[in-house]
């Protein structure tokens, strides 16, 4: 019986004999188990990583391109550049006029979009299997030949400004979240929003965009993830032919200042037109790669996840002080936040809710949680993990995200194992380590002007 790895090595060596560019040689780097499936890792001579999972359950393919660049790579005065640039990637290239990129994909029935966050940017296509070469060709084209001129940059800045109005300026939760990170981080780039400050968005020039493109959009700073109904060798040959001529670039060393430990409690208020008061409490949390991250995620689930969680039960069901509660351990490469939130109900206030938060935090620091609560939290997290693997796009996103942030494409499964290993004493340990009263940020959102039902204003004739 043949050795699958040796077969892939041999095929790559054979393919390299006819490679047109040194950059375009293919190297097989091994297989990683992904549940009951397998991810195969290849790398081109120019550094482009290619991860392939063959899934023939439907005649479709998810084609993702993950770049190791996000808002953490920006600087004050130039915030939002990674996200603006993501928009510009759908524009004109040397071979494609403006709009043609999207038209070609739509004409093939494909869906395409992109996303940017603090640590990464990724572009994705969901495309019928017999059209996957189009995605390869178009992605390779815009990795190397994007055209960045004033009219396109000016128009896209307007679009992004409108996106910011939609997601932040006219959305009280978006605004509160932005303010929370701005206050909680004093040095680290996580302090500014990925969408950028409005003044920065308006100030970008084509030169800023060209410099960003030349710095970060290189094959050796990217990972292509392909999940779906593909023929592995034909796919790799197409990728090699499309990307092989793109040279590697020198990616600058990251210039990120670590966040110093928070040793104070930072309190602030935000006054906006909103229906009710809102509370955000943020402790400094572990990095995604920290062994404590999975444990903190379980603790968050015990406190906030679902109707049977401690704080949901207390604040929403029993005391009826809140409409909802939520907790999230940020999934960032560097230490982020453990965000805890509540939306007050009616005339109830944050002043009533915060002591109940504090009591819950004190209890998990003092006592171990019940085994039944732990089992409940683990079961919910297992369900959530499985739900993310229901589609080829979901699998590609899990592989690309964990590969880009942690270098572990199979980390989704490692996390489920990590959740299973968590004990009640682990939860008390992380509670004592991270839920530190004197080192947190507390944001209170208050309705202003007072929002009460008013009578309809007079109808005006045209």
């Amino acid at each position, binding site marked *: 019986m043949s050795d699958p790895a040796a077969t892939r090595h041999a095929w790559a060596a054979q393919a390299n004999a006819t490679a047109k560019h040194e950059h375009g040689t293919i190297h097989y780097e091994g297989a990683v188990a992904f549940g009951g499936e397998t991810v195969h890792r290849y790398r081109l001579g120019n550094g482009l990583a290619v991860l392939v999972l063959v899934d023939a359950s439907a005649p479709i393919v998810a084609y993702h391109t993950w770049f190791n660049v996000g808002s953490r790579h920006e600087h004050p005065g130039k915030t939002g550049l990674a996200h603006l640039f993501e928009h510009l990637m759908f524009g004109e290239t040397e071979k494609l006029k403006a709009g043609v990129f999207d038209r070609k994909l*739509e004409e093939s029935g494909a869906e395409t979009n992109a996303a940017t966050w603090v640590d990464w940017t990724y572009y994705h296509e969901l495309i019928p299997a017999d059209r996957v070469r189009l995605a390869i060709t178009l992605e390779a084209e815009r990795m190397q030949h994007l055209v960045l001129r004033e009219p396109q940059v000016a128009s896209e800045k307007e679009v992004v400004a409108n996106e910011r109005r939609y997601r932040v300026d006219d959305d009280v939760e978006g605004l509160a979240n932005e303010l929370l990170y701005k206050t909680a981080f004093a040095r680290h780039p996580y302090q500014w929003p990925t969408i950028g400050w409005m003044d920065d968005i308006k100030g970008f020039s084509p030169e800023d965009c060209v410099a960003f493109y030349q710095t970060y959009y290189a094959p050796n700073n990217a990972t292509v993830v392909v999940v779906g109904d593909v023929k592995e060798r034909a796919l790799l040959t197409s990728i090699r032919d499309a990307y092989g001529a793109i040279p590697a670039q020198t990616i600058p060393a990251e210039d990120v200042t670590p966040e110093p430990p928070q040793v104070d409690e930072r309190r602030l208020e935000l006054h906006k037109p909103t229906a009710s008061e809102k509370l955000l409490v943020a402790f400094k949390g572990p990095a995604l790669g920290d062994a404590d991250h999975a444990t903190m995620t379980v603790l968050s689930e015990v406190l906030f996840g679902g109707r049977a969680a401690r704080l949901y039960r207390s604040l929403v069901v029993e005391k009826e002080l809140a409409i909802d509660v939520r907790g999230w351990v940020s999934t960032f490469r560097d230490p982020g936040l453990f965000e805890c939130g509540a939306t007050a109900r009616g005339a109830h206030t944050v002043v009533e809710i915060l002591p109940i938060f504090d009591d819950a935090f004190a209890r998990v620091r003092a006592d171990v949680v019940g085994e039944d609560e732990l089992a409940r939290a683990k079961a919910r997290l297992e369900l959530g993990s499985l739900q993310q*693997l229901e589609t080829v796009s979901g699998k590609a996103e899990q592989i690309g995200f964990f590969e880009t942030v942690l270098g572990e494409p199979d980390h989704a499964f490692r996390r489920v194992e990590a959740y299973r290993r968590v004990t009640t004493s682990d939860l008390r340990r992380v509670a004592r380590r991270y839920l530190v009263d004197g080192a947190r940020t507390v944001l209170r959102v208050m309705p202003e002007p007072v929002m009460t039902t008013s009578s309809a*204003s007079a109808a005006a004739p045209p």
Partner: protein
Amino acid sequence: MTAAKARTRAGAPVASPMRFDLPGGALALLETSHDVPLVSFVVTLRCGSAVDPPGKAGLARIAMRMLRRGCEGFTSEKIDFRIDVLGAEMAVDTSHSSVAVHAQVIARNLEPFVGLVATMLSAPTFPADELERLKRESVAEIVEARDSDRVVAQKALQRTLFEGHPYSLSSGGTVPSVQNITREDVVAFYERYVVRRNIVIGIAGDVTAAKAPSIGERLLAGLREGEAAPDAVAEPTMRPGRRLLVVDKPERTQTQILVGTVGTSPHDDDHVPFVVSNAVFGGTFTSRLMKEIRSKRGWSYGASARAGVDRRRQSWVLWTFPAAEDSGPCLKLSIELMDAWVDGGVTPREIAFIQRYLVRSHAFDIDTASKRLHQGLDVECLSLPADYFSGWTDRVRAVTPESASAAVKNRLRTDDLLVVVVGTAAQVLEPLRSAVPRLSEVSVVPFDAE
């Protein structure tokens, strides 16, 4: 996380779930997939909020949400804990034409979870204190939803466009209508509508065809046969004239603009040509609306047009959200684009392009068992033509530029429009008024009007 594009999606497609007749007149549909160890099931009533009695909007949703607030042997608290510990989740989705209890569970716990849901369905206790609690929760949710300008705009449009028709009522109800619901109302709804003949069960995921009928039968055990709900909703009509409704909300930096009218019925002969033409106008990222409003002018992050599908003619809605200072010009352009589309039709090149998109993207509408199942449920519960999805791509291919243009001209009257704008009235009212020629009515209401 931020994204480059607001999602626009057009089209629909093929489904042929396995069908089982269950005892007592219920129907079960099955789509299997063993890719992930999860099983989903949906218990769907063949009626929705359109059957809510006058003054009791929200009853269908409240009644079905009450199923998990207490049943034989379980308090609400015990049910919540049991659902979680089984690695399951459950939610109620209400539309005008159906109410669905969606459930999903890790496959190894399917049996005990089906048992729990069966008890909730057949032996709910409807505790009075839990009902009062749920009503207070629902009222708080209605008030909180006013934080979303988009939701405020959608509710205002639906309420005004279909005034006097059941489609005008919010499925979640209003503050007074929810407060008006009694335990007797909930019990009456349950006894009348949660009966075998009024239920379609959908099952999808890691389950075998041999096992599916027994799951369906267990879920319905204890329910009586009853009668399917009659479909008494009348066809809605469009009020003549061009109306502008400004929903006044303070401190808005942008507006939510909806231009709406009564649209298409799935039983219209020209339904598919209408939907295909609408995809050209506002159904994709390269549609006319996106090209003119976003790509050329940068006025809005998104611009789209959507034709709702229901048992009766639903709304057709154009949606965009420009900066407050661009609202007048953006609305003016939107209506000019609509006029040009309705009067001038679509070109052969546009139709050929969108046909390729709709036919080829069909693969993504049926790539999971859950999607295929929901197409089957829609056919049953929205009374769609039996081949609505299975014959979709053939009908799309058959559309011609002439049939597409005629369908839109036949169904949409640009003289009869409702424009709803959520924004700060003092800033945007006059520019908006100037943007719409031949306005017959202008009104301003506060954002918390219901």
